[in-house]
């Protein structure tokens, strides 16, 4: 656990970073699992003496971005969340008023997950981990575009779910670009990165809990979004959940669902005692090949949705040609629908928002919610054990 190794790293805190780093400008493509790890990187760069104002994220994904900056740089046909990265790289290389020194695009191999230790592994999708190598090829095939632009391309391979390895991996990735970098300094910065990420996740989980407690108090319905973190990008997830929120339904994202022991014990205690699972974050009862971090969390999210009465509806978002989601369609739907919860899936999301069909489906969803939400909540409450901690305060 990152928190256990933190004190050791902090005790070795070196002197402040050399000042020259403060002027370095680092560009980061706002893609894939940067959506769930950006706080880690901000914490890390801050500790390394990089001015946060000099850490530039590319804009949200858009068709325009792809057209303007990514055209002709794609190397292969695949899912849109990967395909669109060329546009993000291009924007950072060609679209900045003030030139960048570094384009930073980590190859994230494993993810820090609240399910870590309870599942087989927390790997990223093979496309997520390898995307930087794939996209890079499009910027090297005719000429080295990075070198021509005077930008260093930094793409460390990093196993974020293995904290002891991370300082070594990132030190190797940065030693040639950050003047005076030491191993001890990187170790400390990594510790701060984890702390920043943990703090951010905790805050959002607390917020989600407040929403759930409000729902419990008022006996009102909320919606849970099951998706990959990058579906939060308006250009990837097309803000479908925002359209629903406009109808007054609180929206929760599975990534930030509260994981407090009291709530977990209430939701999963019975399954643990019956021997189906070993802990609240164990998903062997529904998904034996628990290798992929985001997939694991989606399956877990479905189980949570099936058990929390006030989640009256689940919205599933999935990108076109997503190979990771494909085998999960049926189990996720089954887990949710068996509990009587409404389930709506938006599959095959691509570059353009299917505005017409989204509008119709949003209307359908709200219609069903208006008609059945109370009944769903009541039935789910009856099916669960009494004493839900959400309804205690």
């Amino acid at each position, binding site marked *: 656990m990152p928190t256990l190794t933190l004190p050791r790293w902090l005790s070795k805190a070196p002197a402040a970073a050399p000042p020259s780093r403060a002027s370095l400008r680092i560009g980061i493509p706002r893609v894939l699992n940067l959506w769930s790890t950006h706080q880690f990187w901000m914490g890390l760069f801050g500790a390394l003496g990089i001015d946060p104002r000099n850490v530039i994220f590319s804009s949200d994904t858009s068709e325009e971005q792809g057209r303007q900056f990514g055209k002709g740089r794609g190397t292969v046909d695949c899912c849109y969340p990967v395909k669109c990265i060329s546009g993000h790289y291009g924007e950072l290389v060609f679209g900045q008023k003030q030139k960048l020194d570094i384009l930073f695009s980590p190859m994230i191999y494993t993810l820090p997950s609240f399910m870590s230790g309870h599942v087989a592994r927390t790997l990223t999708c*093979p496309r997520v981990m390898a995307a930087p190598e794939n996209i890079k090829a499009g910027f090297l095939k005719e000429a080295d575009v990075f070198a021509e632009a005077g930008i260093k391309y930094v793409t460390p391979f990093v196993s974020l779910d293995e904290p002891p390895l991370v300082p070594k991996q990132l030190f190797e990735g940065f030693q040639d670009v950050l003047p005076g970098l030491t191993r001890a300094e990187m170790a400390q910065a990594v510790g701060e990165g984890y702390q920043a990420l943990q703090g951010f996740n905790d805050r959002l989980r607390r917020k989600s809990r407040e929403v759930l407690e409000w729902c419990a108090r008022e006996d009102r319905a909320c919606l849970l979004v099951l998706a990959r973190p990058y579906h939060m990008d308006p250009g990837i997830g097309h803000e479908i959940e925002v359209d629903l929120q406009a109808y007054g339904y609180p929206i929760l994202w599975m990534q930030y669902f509260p994981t407090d022991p009291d709530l977990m014990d209430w939701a999963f205690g019975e399954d643990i005692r019956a021997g189906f699972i070993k802990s609240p974050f164990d998903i062997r009862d529904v998904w034996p*090949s628990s290798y992929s971090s985001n997939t694991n969390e989606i399956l877990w999210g479905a189980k949570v949705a099936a058990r929390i009465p006030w989640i009256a509806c689940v919205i599933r978002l999935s990108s076109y040609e997503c190979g990771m989601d494909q*085998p999960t369609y049926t189990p996720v739907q089954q887990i949710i629908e068996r509990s009587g919860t409404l389930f709506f899936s938006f599959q095959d999301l691509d570059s353009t928002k299917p505005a017409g069909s989204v509008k119709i489906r949003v209307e359908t969803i709200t219609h069903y919610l208006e008609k059945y939400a109370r009944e769903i909540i009541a039935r789910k409450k009856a*099916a669960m054990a009494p004493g839900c901690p959400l309804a205690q305060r």
Partner: protein
Amino acid sequence: MATATTEHYRAYTPKPFTRAERDSVTILFGGLHWRIERVLQAVLENSGYRARVLPIATKEDLLTGREVADIGQCCPTSFTTGNLVNFLRGEAKQIGAAEVAKRYIYLTAGSCGACRFGQYHQSYELALRNSGLDAFRMFLMAQDQLDQKAAMGDGLDLNLPMTLGCLWGIFCTDLVQDLEYQVRPYEVLPGQTDAVVKDSVEYLYEVFRNRPARTPYRSVFWHLTTPYFTRALREVYRKFSQIEVDRLRVKPKVKITGEFYLQTVEGEPNYNIHRWLEAEGAEVYPAAITVWMDYLLRLGLQRFEDYSGIEKGARLKLGLGRVAQGIYRWTFNRLRRAMGSLSHEIPSQFELRRLAAPYFHSRLDGGEGDMLVGKALWAYHRKKAHMICELSPYSCMPNTMSIGAMAGVVGRYPDLLYAPLEIKGDAEVHALSRCQMILTEAKKRAQREFDDVLARTGLTVDEVRAYLDAHPEMKRATYRVPHGDAAGTAANLVLHVARRLGRRG
């Protein structure tokens, strides 16, 4: 609208396969090529199981696979799930679904990380449910987890002697397959190679079926030291020696790479690409399973490399692992020598990693990872082939990434002939015509190379032929032509003859 139930959804959990059932239950397996499947059947039977190889997957299986599982799966998953379901449906028609569930179990490789290979269970499960075969038992062996009694029951004992049998079976059949593909394009008597290979595989089937039983530890020692397998391979060598070849036929050499299933099977799942290439005048350099497993070993050991200096004991584990990998390669080479060192050597994983490093990180796994890039560069730099035919499954996740990285390689080496073929299972014309275009260029290169070698050595085709007629042993399939400064077989033969004649090449 669905109604709430207190019964939550649970994943399929097959009933265990018990020891008592061994005599009455047949283990089904498949998804490789026929030579290794036949020998694996022998290994299973030798260990006291009833085993049956599934028929080669067909386009019909692909359609069934698509129909019975969630949409969007990669084409190997569609082929293999459809293949199993169609076989079981056929059996069920005759003996009923309940009897099928009683008489058969299915065994397949399970997890190799986060690509869908690790999630096959879901596709199979859905396919079985949708076909009314819910009670059928299938077991996925995790490649990194050999003892799975808890999940499978005590019926299947994946013990050391059986594992070693499988491994030695892979080595032997890889060697046979490799030689077969080197010989068939040049055979003088059409069909002779196929007959010899069939005979050899049947012979190996008996060899593996009659493998003497040993306790686990003795079995390791026995496998490493026994002449049992080298003797068998010398017999195979003898069978091949009856084939007469004409190696002066100028043919482009095409190396097959790509996703594991597609590069291994021979049939409709990959448009019969091996046979098609041969029919189009190429010599195929097939992908050995041995190389794939060597890669998996390297991948596993890289973890200890990463943890060296961080975790206690990591260096020791790395050292032991390297020794194991050394033994693995030594064993393969020992068996290869028994076949006259005719089959291709296995490339060094370190070299493949070094070659691929500027384009693809060695730690990225799923599919063939950096090996796919490394093998293409290895074949190019070392003149192992004129062309790379890369079989990429439609909707595969890891493979698309390695192929994308190949754009950087081709940018750097524009004369590397690289044909990435997207295999959908039912878009044959498109894929093959694409391959044809690059093959045409490869043929020109092979011819140019041959003409160049003749010019360099000052030999004519007639002179070389006359020399071969005077040395008939050189026309045997088992005569070893050393790999010279050329990729093509004919060009290397000319170089060899020139050297024997004392000419400079």
